[in-house]
């Protein structure tokens, strides 16, 4: 899933979270979030991604890819780099998450 917005911030975090949870509830439990276009994430935006990961729980997985180095620093600052599986490319992320379908 490509995020087409350039900012994931407090002004859209709640809508983003609700949309993604809708997608999860429709049965999509293995999600790769491609952040290529995203140049800014604040704590509300980050919280919305965490919320989706918690909604998935043990039933699925949410991995991230193509994160700008500045946004990556935000993940490190908040220790969220220890929570999410983060890949440089979408291909690597899809390959990783594909393993889960075979388990």
């Amino acid at each position: 899933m490509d995020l087409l917005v350039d900012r994931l911030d407090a002004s859209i975090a709640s809508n983003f979270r609700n949309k993604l949870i809708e997608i999860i509830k429709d049965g999509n439990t293995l999600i790769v979030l491609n952040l290529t276009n995203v140049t800014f994430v604040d704590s509300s935006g980050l919280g919305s991604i965490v919320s989706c990961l918690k909604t998935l729980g043990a039933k699925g997985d949410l991995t991230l890819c193509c994160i700008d180095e500045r946004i990556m620093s935000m993940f490190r600052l908040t220790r969220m780099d220890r929570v999410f599986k983060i890949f440089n490319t979408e291909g690597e992320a899809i390959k990783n998450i594909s393993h889960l379908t075979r388990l």
Partner: protein
Amino acid sequence: MLEKRIKLIIDSNLEDVQMVSNAINRLCTLGPLTDLEIFHIELAVVESVNNVIEHAYNNERGHEVEIIFTLYANRVTLDVCDMGMTMDDKLKNRIEKSPLEFDPTELNMLPERGLGLAIIHEVMDDVAYSSCHDKNTLTLTKRFIVHDTRR
């Protein structure tokens, strides 16, 4: 170097925060800061303004949020001011028990909210809060080293 100062004012509307965010990013390029330091300052200001809108003004539009950017010879300061509710002790004390101290394997315990102040403290050198005559001010300071290139 004489200090340089500019005041930005926006409405207490989360959709207007991006204007401050972009402006602060550009203003920071006036100082000898790296791209990452500028991004962190921008992030700290956004978190501060979001906190004002969400907590001081309870997400109510129609109030002013004032951001004063000052560039000194050895530091940049940002005063984020509001005339709303004072930051309560509960919020201030959150930082004493950092929300960043969590177990990454405990999915249900991961923090979804309340990271803003912790981020501000992580990226800025000094953070001070004051309330005077109904005006609340959060002052963020980032210091930098000035390299004298004169021979």
